[in-house]
């Protein structure tokens, strides 16, 4: 089963006085996590996203749409990146998700991916 691990973090923590050190530390932990996946034979992929200020949102309303500057929702936790991993079940996905570094406050959402070709 594939799960998407969505990392919602407080971007401003990287802009603070210790921002660079926190970023370096967080990235190192991401590298270590990737190595752990390789060592455990867990298939994975993932990306880091640019800050939410670079986002453009297309908002649909019954067929018509408008473009907006910024992420889809204003919040203090922005989607900063994601992984997709293939594991046996939710418990394994949660165990891995707990190892994702989140400096300060934030959250990691774990969602099963709808398998291609599966019936509804």
């Amino acid at each position, binding site marked *: *089963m594939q799960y998407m691990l969505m990392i919602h973090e407080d971007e401003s923590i990287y802009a603070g006085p210790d921002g660079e050190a926190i970023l370096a530390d967080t990235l190192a932990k991401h590298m270590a996590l990737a190595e752990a996946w390789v060592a455990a034979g867990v298939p994975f992929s993932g990306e880091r996203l640019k800050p939410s200020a670079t986002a453009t949102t297309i908002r649909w309303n019954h067929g018509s749409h408008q473009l907006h500057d910024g992420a889809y929702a204003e919040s203090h936790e922005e989607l900063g990146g994601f992984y997709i991993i293939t594991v*046996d*079940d*939710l*418990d*394994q996905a*949660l*165990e891995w998700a707990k190892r994702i570094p989140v400096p300060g406050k934030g959250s990691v959402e*774990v*969602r*099963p991916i709808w398998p291609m070709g599966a*019936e509804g």
Partner: protein
Amino acid sequence: MDARGGAGAAIIAARPVVVAALAARFRDLDLAEDGFADASELALRQFAHHPLPANMAGWLHVAARRRIIDRLRRDARLVRIVEQSGLEPEADAEEPDAVSDFDPRIPDERLRLIFICCHPAIAPDARAALTLRVVCGVPTERIAAAFLMAVPAMYQRLTRAKAKIREAQVPFETPPQHLWGERLAAVLTTLEIGYALAYQDAGSSEPTADLGLEVLRLAAMLAELVPGDPEVLGLAALVQLAESRRAARIDRDGCMVPLSEQDAARWDAALIASAATLMEQAAALGCSGPYQVMAALHLTHARRRNGQRTDWQAIVRLYDVLLMMRPGAVVAINRALALAQVEGPRAGFDALEALQGPALDRYRPWHAARAYLQAAMGDMAAARASYRAALALNPPRAERLYLEAAFRETSA
């Protein structure tokens, strides 16, 4: 005994073991529940006029398994479940109605089923409802009544929880040892919700009274399955002690009787003794926790059953410990009431007044405690106002009758 009633009781008793074994095997809660329901119907028909089998659980297990496999064969949409669970088609294609033999060795998967229903990925309230439904077999209507919810809403909550388990692929395995801390904590909070629901109303009408017995059974089952965890034993003892007082909690008119005024002779001595044994076992494991402290509080009160005076000083000390473990308004209010027994109503009232919190004003136990202590201090006008405030906050019937009687006394 009426054979049908006998079969009914045997079926209810067999349910947790059978449903758990079916769920573990077929990896689907709905299939397990439906299969059990089919088998129960069959048993009720078959044993209405025949003696019960020696092993009802074994009989139901075989009958349910056959019914489920039969269903799987007929229902092409369920092929996926067969493939995923690696099930071999069963050789015995005989009519499910012709169950004559049974396997006496059903694997005990109850703990596994409890862990699935109490997975922390499911919201706590939904967990409690799901556990009562799937493990205990409490009808959805009764669970809805206990949660003060409409039946369709409760049905939807249960359906959603089951869908989450299925779609997010909550594993049907017993969690590995290193996850037990978190997972067992989720099980205990689930049971605590059931316990709170069952005992929130002294004059509980049918749904919650039944729920008390279910929670009692469930807690005892967990203590049997996880005897090495002191908090599991503590919670089981706590539920037994609460249940031991059920008969004494209301008087003939349906009016609530506070613990300290209850007739101890009406408390269930066997349940108290059993709880005391559980707590000794827990203490021997040498790790305290809030459930053990709460059970110790109840047990201190229960000693009155043996003619001993209530040791209020010990109770205050236990509340102090509990406050450190679990700070909260209920604990602080109860501590103030205990303190009043040791140092007089003024000390208790001062402790109450020292509490702070924006929601206290809307909290019935706070007003009721103030009223009680104000009356004890002789300030009847203030007590009347506090009783009025408590009565304005929609108490359940038994508590309302008690508050009204106390209110009248302040005017006497």
